């Protein structure tokens, strides 16, 4: 039965239900147990933002606190996956990925291929991304384009509690390494989530708003910013179709192309930097495969090509907001062709 829970609770529930269902599922990371067993405030934790809270007692021995050494425990998770476990490793902030990148892009991502399809690596790496928490340049990045670039990795960015649970259950059941991106600003977002287990398949975008004038393709937190813009634009008589990609690898090209063929106008909204990004990738997709349908140049709304500023005022300007999306949509809507 569906009830309203938060994005954070949805992720916790997916972990718990999969651990219940399958004994080979284990959870590991920095503070994932969160000081359980010791007195004081630490007891209440479960990961730095409380996502794994409560799992330690329900699944003794299967929630592992790791040393602050990403290269060690991400390597351990990948190794365990090759040996028959289904580890879900929490890499606190995606910004810390650098120190364990070899294990991810040159090992986990390659095993299936290098061993002629005989090896599987069912590991999930959960990680936080995104700006908005006043956490400065080294704790606020959106590095999903780096992983989307690498064949052999699946890259998932849920935008709602419903998707968070269903995509994480799919990620855990998937036999390939999955990078699971959780936006810090979405943890308290509440929405309807079924009590039962369910999966949301990879490579299936979600049309979260229908409209015939302009297509907006967004992902992660930007889906909500885009919906806000679409609401404002509707008041001005411009109807936007808002597409949530949900996964960047695999990518649901068909849903994007069908919408662009119907509207002829495309705005891509992406919180990541503008170069070699999901935004440019989707723009290129439309240019290559829907060129005949385009009635205006594709617009992108992204963060600037700078580190995330620490200044509150600058950080607020850095993250794409609804007004910038409204402006971009109006720009493409004005083209007559």
């Amino acid at each position, binding site marked *: *039965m*569906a*009830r*309203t829970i938060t994005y954070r609770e949805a992720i916790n529930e997916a972990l718990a239900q999969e651990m219940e269902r399958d004994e080979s599922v284990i959870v590991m990371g920095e503070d994932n147990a969160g000081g359980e067993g010791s007195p004081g405030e630490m007891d209440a934790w479960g990961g730095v933002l409380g996502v794994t809270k409560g799992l330690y007692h329900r699944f003794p021995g299967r929630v592992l606190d790791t040393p602050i050494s990403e290269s060690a425990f991400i390597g351990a998770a990948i190794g365990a996956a090759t040996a028959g476990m289904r580890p879900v490793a929490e890499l606190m902030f995606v910004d810390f990925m650098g120190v364990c990148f070899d294990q991810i892009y040159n090992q986990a991502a390659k095993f299936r291929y290098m061993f002629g399809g005989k090896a599987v690596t069912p590991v999930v790496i959960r990680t936080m991304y995104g700006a908005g928490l006043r956490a400065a340049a080294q704790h606020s990045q959106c590095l999903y384009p780096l992983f989307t670039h690498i064949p052999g990795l699946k890259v998932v960015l849920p935008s*709602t509690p*419903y*998707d968070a649970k*269903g995509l994480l259950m799919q990620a855990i059941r998937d036999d390939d390494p999955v990078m699971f991106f959780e936006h810090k600003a979405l943890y308290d977002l509440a*929405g*309807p*989530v*079924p*009590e*039962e*287990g*369910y*999966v*949301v*398949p990879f490579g*299936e975008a*979600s*049309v*979260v*708003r*229908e*409209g*015939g004038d302009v297509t907006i393709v967004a992902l992660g937190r930007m889906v909500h910013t885009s*919906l806000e813009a*679409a*609401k404002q634009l*509707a008041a001005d008589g411009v*109807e*936007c179709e808002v597409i949530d990609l949900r996964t960047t690898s695999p990518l649901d090209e*068909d849903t994007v192309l069908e919408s662009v063929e119907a509207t002829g106008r495309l705005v891509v909204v992406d919180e990541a930097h503008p170069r070699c990004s999901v935004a440019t990738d989707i723009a290129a997709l439309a240019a290559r495969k829907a060129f005949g349908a385009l009635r205006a140049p594709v617009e992108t709304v992204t963060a600037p090509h700078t580190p995330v500023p620490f200044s509150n005022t600058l950080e607020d300007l850095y993250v794409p907001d609804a007004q910038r999306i409204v402006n971009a949509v109006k720009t493409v809507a004005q083209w007559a062709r």
Partner: protein
Amino acid sequence: MRPQAPGRTPRGREAPQGCPGAEDQLPEASEAPAREADKYDERIVAVTMPKWGLSMQLGKITGWIAAEGDDVSVGDDLADIETEKIAGTLEAADAGTLRRIIARVGEDVPVGATIALIAPASVSDDDLGAAVQEARTVIDAGVPGEAAGGPAVETAEVDGRRISYAGTGQDGDVVLLVHGYGGDRNSWLFLQEPLAAQHRVYALDLPGHGTSAKDVGDGSAGTLAGAVLGVLDAIGAGRAHLVGHSLGGAVAVATAARDPRRISSLTLIAPAGFGPEINAGYLRGFADAQTRRELKPVVGQLFADESLVTRQLVDDVLAYKRLDGVSAALHALVGALLDGDSQRMDSAAAVAEIGDAVPVTVVWGSADRIIPPAQAESVAGAVRHLVDGAGHMPHMERPAEVQAAIEETIARSG
């Protein structure tokens, strides 16, 4: 009410994230605010926000058709109303002069709140003003919180399975609505509330469906009938009128066959088990479809007018199909429904046996593409209603006609 289309969302509107049971999270809206104005002057009649489906909590007036000062008759169009799931036209339930319009176009109004006042000219402006003020307070307060909520979805443990059901209506006989293969209790959104004016109306989720347990056992009509009897026990209903659609029709018949004394009447809508022909491709296609692209043309076969199949409808069905256990349940039901490409279930013999003890009505859409309407002839002793131009879902496509058939069947039971 005249629904424009089941599940239709006008272009450009935000669709909630797909999740068939999404409405369960919300407390059911209270009936209490209805006719709030009555306490001021009994000549003032309140026009209230209707409740179209158990999940509806808020409605939005998209346009007033009637204007202040108009004389309206029962059945006149008053306003166009839009909800999260459907759009429709509100018809006047009372005659008189529309003296005040309270709900503004575009604002969210809780179900049951007064949106306009009908009163004769002799009622003073002061008296109307007080009633308007009271109604305004209710609208501005929004949806009542959980404490003020009415009946929620309930569950009963039947044969080791958790069965969900929801009821509405204060008085009268118990009516239990039994959905078909792949449906759920929300299939009755256009009927449950209107029927509740006269009856206590319940709808359940059969095993394998909605928010009930997903294990269907052998998937036979007899097994599913156990869930129906279990719900009747849970609500303490000695007897009930059963309304069953498609597979739910066969389940209703099996329920009556098992315990005829508990069934007051049977209304069967495009029921299974009255002939060999059935659209086996539909049944298998529904169970097998993995994506929206695969599912949409399958679901389209349910309706005479395929444009009724919105993205939201397909997304809701997909979200249901992706729950753990549903694929196994649907495939088990296909096995129980089909013998090769023909129907395995036989409801005809059971209906003939029930004989004259229970009034039976059969309702069929003339354009049904799942089970041929000619099979209505095999329902012995039944009153037959052919719904012209409707497909396999007349209770969604032509709810008013189906409602009339149900009311008439209940009346025949004496």
